[in-house]
């Protein structure tokens, strides 16, 4: 590639993440006469960089003031030459990520890659002003997967890294000079690295345009390939190129509507555009692009799974991390999906190590457990995931994810990874072969839980993916996570007769299902705030929770420390063969839903009425 072409790629790099609104610039002269020259490539963490400003349009003199308006604070900022140049130092990796650095390949999103924006404002004694923003990043984005593009620097969490094997023609070395160990793969091939403790990491580097797109081969993923052919992710560039929603489309969106990292020599879309010269002109319709741009345009397989080769089996768990989707959906203030999600309990669902180990917990407290359960359930009788994982139902590999066209693969993270949470891929199935026409917002389609079998409206819940983990399992000894049971007025038992105790379901008609109410989140993001899943406002407090806890206290002689399904309320059984057991079951249905009053107050009261009729009588006795 010539220097001129690389410069073109640099222009694309600067623009590719810029289809978003910024803090509005103050009114200035109509013409952009303040030109900013930024570093063409990421500058590294804890590394110095410089930006220069120059005037055109016949302007001269004056001075430039700089103000940081986005990103983690830069350090040592020092303007010079009346502000026409400024130097500063990028934040260290730990400051940029804002949290602990995981071992191995460090995932980096637009938010965590140390991307900063400095606003330059020029003014002179005549009252004239010009304002331009300068965007600089410490690093390219990273999915956190061990198969990684050539030409994109990989940052490593851990210490004492050294290379034990490398491709024969590689001259790349580990760099420990910018606050973190990193490697810039220079050729395609396999690296073997080891940390100071001898723990090995296999890196596979490749170019996007060298990687075959033969995932749909017979015996591999033909059905998934069918499913993604019409996926909105696959077709996003094709659709929008012909529509041109913005004047600078697609250049402004290449980082997330095409494969590869703009500005990098990775064989990605932007790189191919620069190599193609005039043939890569993007001011055309989709059908008029050359073949390789068709292959690299859109969010295809490699955009998420990375180039080169499939990672070693032991490393494939990382594909379930939110970090993968974060490479595009963690770019506040425009894309706040990950920021919002990180505020949820789901993001911390497996914080307690026992939830990652206990068979009863993993189906709903871990993403890998959830996927293993629902995928296996299609073969052997969902729903009863806990029983299945306890071994009470046939399940030869309880932790393995097995889609209809894949062999079971264990996606459980290594123990030292820590919490991963219920991530994007639990709720969103971007290539579900059982949903060849896709689903709304690519939501995963899940079977209707058994407890809701008689609740007709449950089948039409738009986001039924919530139901499996928010509906009690009828085979469990005590009910867990009873929200959906309350919402649909199902699950209770008449203590005397043992017949189902059913109620009306006023909230089941809320448009949008669960997220019809649970759709609020941080206010400072344009999109994705709903992924905080907060209900917009608390309903007026009523007596239901207090009444249920009083009944518990009377029953047990102690405060309810719940949740009971996690064993935090002490050992308790609800033997549904007896009136007392059925009453306890009803009580626990209410206690397991902290918002029972909001979800279905009449039904919750009916459950408590039925429970009290038995339990209070016994207490009085």
């Amino acid at each position, binding site marked *: 590639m010539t220097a001129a072409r690389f410069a073109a790629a640099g222009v694309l790099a600067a623009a590719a993440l810029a289809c978003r609104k910024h803090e509005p610039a103050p009114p200035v002269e109509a013409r952009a006469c303040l030109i900013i020259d930024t570093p063409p490539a990421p500058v590294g963490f804890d590394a110095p960089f410089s930006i220069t400003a120059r005037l055109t349009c016949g302007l001269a003199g004056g001075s430039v003031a700089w103000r940081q308006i986005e990103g983690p604070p830069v350090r040592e900022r020092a303007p010079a030459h009346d502000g026409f140049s400024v130097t500063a130092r990028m934040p260290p990796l730990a400051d940029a990520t804002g949290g602990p650095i995981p071992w191995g390949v460090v995932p980096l999103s637009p938010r965590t890659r140390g991307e900063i924006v400095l606003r330059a404002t020029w003014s002179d004694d005549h009252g004239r002003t010009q304002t331009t923003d300068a965007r600089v990043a410490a690093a390219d984005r990273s999915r956190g997967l061990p198969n990684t593009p050539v030409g994109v620097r990989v940052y490593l969490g851990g210490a004492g890294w050294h290379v034990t094997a490398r491709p024969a023609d590689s001259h790349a070395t580990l760099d420990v000079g910018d606050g973190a160990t990193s490697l810039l793969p220079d050729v*395609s091939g396999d690296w073997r690295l080891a940390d100071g403790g001898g723990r090995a990491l296999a890196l596979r580097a490749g*170019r996007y*345009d*060298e990687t*075959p*797109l*033969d*995932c*749909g*081969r017979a015996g591999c*993923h033909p059905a*998934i*390939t069918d499913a*993604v*052919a019409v996926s909105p992710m*696959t*077709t996003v*560039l*094709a*659709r929008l190129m012909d529509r041109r929603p913005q004047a600078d489309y697609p250049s402004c969106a290449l980082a997330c509507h095409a494969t590869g990292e703009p500005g990098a020599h990775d*064989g990605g879309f932007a790189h*191919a555009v620069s*190599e*193609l*010269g*005039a*043939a*890569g*002109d993007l001011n*055309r*319709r*989709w*059908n*008029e*692009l*050359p*073949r*390789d741009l*068709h*292959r690299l*345009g*859109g*969010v*295809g*397989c*490699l*955009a998420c799974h990375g180039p080169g080769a499939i990672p070693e089996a032991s490393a494939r768990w990382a594909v379930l991390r939110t970090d993968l989707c974060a490479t595009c959906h963690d770019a506040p203030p425009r894309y706040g999906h990950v920021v919002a999600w990180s505020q949820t309990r789901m993001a911390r669902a497996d914080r307690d190590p026992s939830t990652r180990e206990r068979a009863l917990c993993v189906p709903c407290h871990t993403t890998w457990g959830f996927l293993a359960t629902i995928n296996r359930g299609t073969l052997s009788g969902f729903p009863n995931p806990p029983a299945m994982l306890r071994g009470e139902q046939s399940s030869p590999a309880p932790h393995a994810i097995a889609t209809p066209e894949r062999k079971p693969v264990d996606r459980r993270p290594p123990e030292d990874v820590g919490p991963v949470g219920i991530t994007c891929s639990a709720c969103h199935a971007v290539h579900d072969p059982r949903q060849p026409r896709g689903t709304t917002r690519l939501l995963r389609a899940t079977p209707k839980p058994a407890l809701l079998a008689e609740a007709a409206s449950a089948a039409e819940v738009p986001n039924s993916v919530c139901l499996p983990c928010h509906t009690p399992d009828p085979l469990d000894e005590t009910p867990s996570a009873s929200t959906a049971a309350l919402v649909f007025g199902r699950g209770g038992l008449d203590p005397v007769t043992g017949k189902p105790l059913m109620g009306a379901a006023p909230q089941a008609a809320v448009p949008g299902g669960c997220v019809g109410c649970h759709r609020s989140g941080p206010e400072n993001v344009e999109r994705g705030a709903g992924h905080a899943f907060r209900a917009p406002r608390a309903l007026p407090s009523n007596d239901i929770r207090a009444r249920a806890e009083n009944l518990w206290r009377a029953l047990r002689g102690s405060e309810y420390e719940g949740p009971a399904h996690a064993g935090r309320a002490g050992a308790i059984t609800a033997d549904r063969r007896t009136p007392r057991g059925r009453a306890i079951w009803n009580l626990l249905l209410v206690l397991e839903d902290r918002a029972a009053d909001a979800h279905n107050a009449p039904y919750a009261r009916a459950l408590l009425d039925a429970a009290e009729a038995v339990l209070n009588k016994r207490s009085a006795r």
Partner: protein
Amino acid sequence: MGAGADCANVETLRVCWNAGVPRVVGPATARGPARAPAFTCNGTHCEQRHPRMPDTGEWQCSDSAGATICRGGERAAGVAPAPADPAWRCGARRGGPPGERVCVDLSPDFPDGRARGWRCHTLYEGPVRRSCDRDADAHTLGDTCERARPCVDGSRCVDGVCVPEPPAPACWLETDCGGGRCRFGSCLGAGT
């Protein structure tokens, strides 16, 4: 050319076959909306990144006397629908794996736009690229011809220019043709 004529660009010419008989009808027509990727040259060696292929699928290509022949065609996963390049003629490969196709481009890209004087092939080591070297002795489609200067095998001299037999892509190897010859991706009879 009348209705039913079968026409294609051959090097820089437009050739039609009527009842199997070729005839040069004029200069090559415009190829299609996708522009030719540029060649980068160093002396007598030129390379073209992102060379043309029949469609977005997986292809293995080689050159033969000024034509490019590809086999494969496995669909590309995760790629939005895009039209096939109309300049390629394709057919099922005889005796090949199920679904395998053979495609031929009789007017592929050359550094100076002419086939004559170049020997090209497709490189798969590293980024896929079309590599062309100057070779004054190379004989190609589109060569001028006469009795003392015959055409390459699989083509015939028509109006003083070498043009191929009617293309019916079906072979990659000689053995695909069951005793016939595989020339420019088409099976030709022993005496053709």
